[in-house]
């Protein structure tokens, strides 16, 4: 089932073309890593798909009304905004807002989703802590849990693992992979190509004003693409421990 | 008074304006203040129109080359001080707080203008008319003076004295008010005075005067004799206050008729 279809999407910001001609279909079961150098437009692409920035072309998410869209796709922005000192549990429960009729309290089912999201991110012990007093990495996990609690077929996350320690980076990638295995889809922008190579089912390489490559990690992380787009060379191998990718040097 | 009579007199206060106009010789008074031609405040608008109008500012007063300036005790200190530094004689008058003050002010103004006789005559005539009005009364109905912002005046004010002279007792005294002060509206309602006297409302709406339209005041006003007094008869200690006393006499008769 196609959960997101982008057709010929293009965005200009302040008269500068960020990207153009982006078309892609995201199917249920996929964990898509959105990769590309700084400024390639990864964030803008996801925001355009969600209708948060004006774009030409078409995104299937915009066929929904805003309220229905919120039940179809969850979005975790890169900015880790937590404006008020609310508890971790209350913050994660905000993910249920699109599912609650106005003025209704959390039902048992809503609470179950909140508990599951807290468990998935290993936050059960912190549920009553004040979110604003947590460390940056902990806050990032709370915000991922919030997006998980929204319980949508499609999850889009902007650099979700930036700032996490290695154990939590891997755990988060495994949670996303697990969602994909359960028949959902996840799109996450990533800078750690090693983690992307190991956990994603598919990579979208953004650069040069559009999509440079789209496919399984092995097909996208070719020496040629890496040199052209990232200006690095790398060591990439399938090992008994799974695919291992390690960038080596900058190409002058 | 050894000084020769001043020849160019400028008054910069509403009350000294009126006293001077009553007593000055022809041509002696050069200028009066702008309030003297305001019909709401001044009882002598017609006479005042014959003089140069000043706005109580030192510069314009000085330009009139006066040899005597008349000011109120509460006239701008800066203006009065500057005129004195410029070597001009400034005489200040305290606001009248009783009927006796009025006679004294007339005599002093006469003396300052070198017209002692005229001053004494005016004072005597005032006392005479006053004692004719100060009828002996067997019962003093209670009246309240109620102005914008809920302000009331007690016995130690000119208005309070006018009220007493006209044969009323003052509600403010009950509240322990002798000077001028705000009396809370609910206190006024509880005292339930027999007559209500308020100031003339000015043109142009204000919030300050809205209290006089409050339903509680409205009800008081409708249920008992009430009067609007013309400010010009009350503000200054001049023989004009006799008009106010006369006006209140009518109100008092109405208040007493109510019981009969």
């Amino acid at each position: 089932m196609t959960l997101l279809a982008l057709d010929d999407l293009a965005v200009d910001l302040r008269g500068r073309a960020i990207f153009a001609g982006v078309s892609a279909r995201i199917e249920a079961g996929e964990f898509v890593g959105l990769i590309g150098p700084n400024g390639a437009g990864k964030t803008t692409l996801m925001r355009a798909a969600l209708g948060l920035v004006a774009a030409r072309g078409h995104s299937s998410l915009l066929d929904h009304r805003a309220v229905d869209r919120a039940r179809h796709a969850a979005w975790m922005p890169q900015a880790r905004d937590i404006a008020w000192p609310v508890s971790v549990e209350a913050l994660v429960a905000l993910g249920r807002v699109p599912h609650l009729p106005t003025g209704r309290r959390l039902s048992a089912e809503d609470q179950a989703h909140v508990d599951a999201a807290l468990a998935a991110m290993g936050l059960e012990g912190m549920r009553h802590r004040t979110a604003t007093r947590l460390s940056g990495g902990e806050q990032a996990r709370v915000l991922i849990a919030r997006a998980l609690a929204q319980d949508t077929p499609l999850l889009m996350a902007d650099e979700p693992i930036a700032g996490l320690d290695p154990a939590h980076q891997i755990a988060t990638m495994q949670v996303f992979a697990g969602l994909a295995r359960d028949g959902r889809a996840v799109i996450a922008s990533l800078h750690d190509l090693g983690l992307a190579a190991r956990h994603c089912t598919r990579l979208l390489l953004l650069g040069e004003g559009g999509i440079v490559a789209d496919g399984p990690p092995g097909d996208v992380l070719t020496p040629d693409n890496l040199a052209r787009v990232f200006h690095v060379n790398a060591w990439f191998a399938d090992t008994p421990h799974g695919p291992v990718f390690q960038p080596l040097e900058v190409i002058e | 008074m050894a000084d020769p009579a001043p020849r160019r007199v400028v008054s910069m206060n509403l009350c000294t304006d009126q006293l001077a106009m009553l007593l000055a010789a022809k041509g002696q008074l050069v200028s009066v203040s702008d309030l003297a031609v305001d019909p709401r405040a001044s009882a002598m608008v017609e006479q005042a129109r014959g003089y140069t109008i000043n706005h109580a500012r030192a510069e314009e007063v000085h330009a009139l080359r006066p040899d005597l300036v008349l000011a109120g005790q509460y006239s701008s200190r800066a203006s009065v001080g500057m005129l004195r530094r410029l070597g001009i004689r400034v005489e200040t008058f305290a606001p009248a707080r009783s009927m006796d003050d009025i006679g004294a002010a007339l005599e002093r103004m006469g003396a300052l203008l070198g017209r002692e006789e005229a001053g004494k005559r005016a004072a005597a005539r005032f006392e005479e008319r006053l004692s004719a009005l100060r009828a002996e009364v067997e019962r003093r109905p209670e009246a309240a003076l109620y102005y914008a912002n809920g302000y009331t005046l007690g016995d130690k004010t000119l208005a309070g004295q006018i009220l007493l002279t006209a044969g009323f007792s003052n509600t403010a005294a009950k509240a322990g008010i002798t000077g001028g002060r705000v009396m809370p509206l609910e206190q006024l309602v509880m005292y339930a005075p027999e007559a209500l006297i308020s100031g003339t409302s000015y043109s142009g709406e204000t919030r300050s005067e809205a209290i006089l339209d409050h339903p509680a005041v409205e009800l008081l006003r409708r249920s008992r004799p009430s009067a609007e007094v013309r400010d010009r008869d009350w503000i200054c200690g001049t023989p004009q206050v006799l008009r106010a006393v006369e006006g209140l006499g009518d109100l008092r008769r109405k208040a007493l008729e109510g019981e009969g």
Partner: protein
Amino acid sequence: MIRVFAALAILCAALFIAALLVGPAQIGAIEGLRALILGGEGPAPLVMQEIRLPRALLAVMIGLSLGLSGAAMQGYLRNPLAEPGLIGVSGSAALGAVVAIHTGFSAAWAYGLPLSALAGALAGVALVIALAGPRGSSLTLILAGIAISAMAAALTSLVLNLSSNPFAANEIVFWMMGSLADRSMMHVGLALPLMVVGWAMLLPLGRGLDALTLGEDAAASMGVRLTRMRLVLVVGTACVVGAATAVAGAIGFVGLVVPHILRPLVGARPSRLLWASALGGAVMVLAADLAVRLILPERDLKLGVLTALVGAPLFLHLIYKTRRELP
């Protein structure tokens, strides 16, 4: 949570009754309440029904409005310094009211007063939101507030000074500090319709304000229509602040102090804070108006003097706390 709301409601009710029973006229509690409910002859029913009841009602309505609008603006701008008085909304509402009174518009048509104050408040709040941007930083908020307050105060003074009425100039204090003295049922009737509209607009914003805790993008992706929400917030705030200011002048700091005190008690959730601040605002204004009557009954101490004495130090404390985000 329920306990917080119950405590606020009980406090509010107790202060309301106290407001009815305290005043310069010595009326016994039982006698007063009987006069209030049963009416009858004599001055006591007049005092209770025409003087104290409207005053107490207005204290509740205005407190509710100021507490609610403070919590709503803070939730939207995600800044604890946002308060209608501080950011110039009350000041511009006062300007609208003063213009209505001194042009005779309010005399020609009673609702001219609150509607003119609404127009002033609308201009003020729209200007603040436009200047402060979607996420109001403390610096822009405070600067915008200073500019708008100064402008509104200057124009208000100008209108009052131009008036030919000698009382007008002295009213600047009332419009800057606010007072509930000598208000009547007529003022209740003038303010209530507009306030009800404003309450109905602001109270349902809770859900969207909750979502905004996570930032604009996240809130928009959760189905919150931000443009519509901003419009509702602006108009709702202008309605309640405009109506409150039209009848009682600009009473500052209520919308700052109340949400600040109550935020920890409701788990900092903006939606709960809306309701709690509404009740808390009523409590604060009732208490301040009682204090005004108890401390200096005959001096007509302005309500805003008391709220500022409580609020200004807290404001300084909040600036101190958020100074890191200031350059």
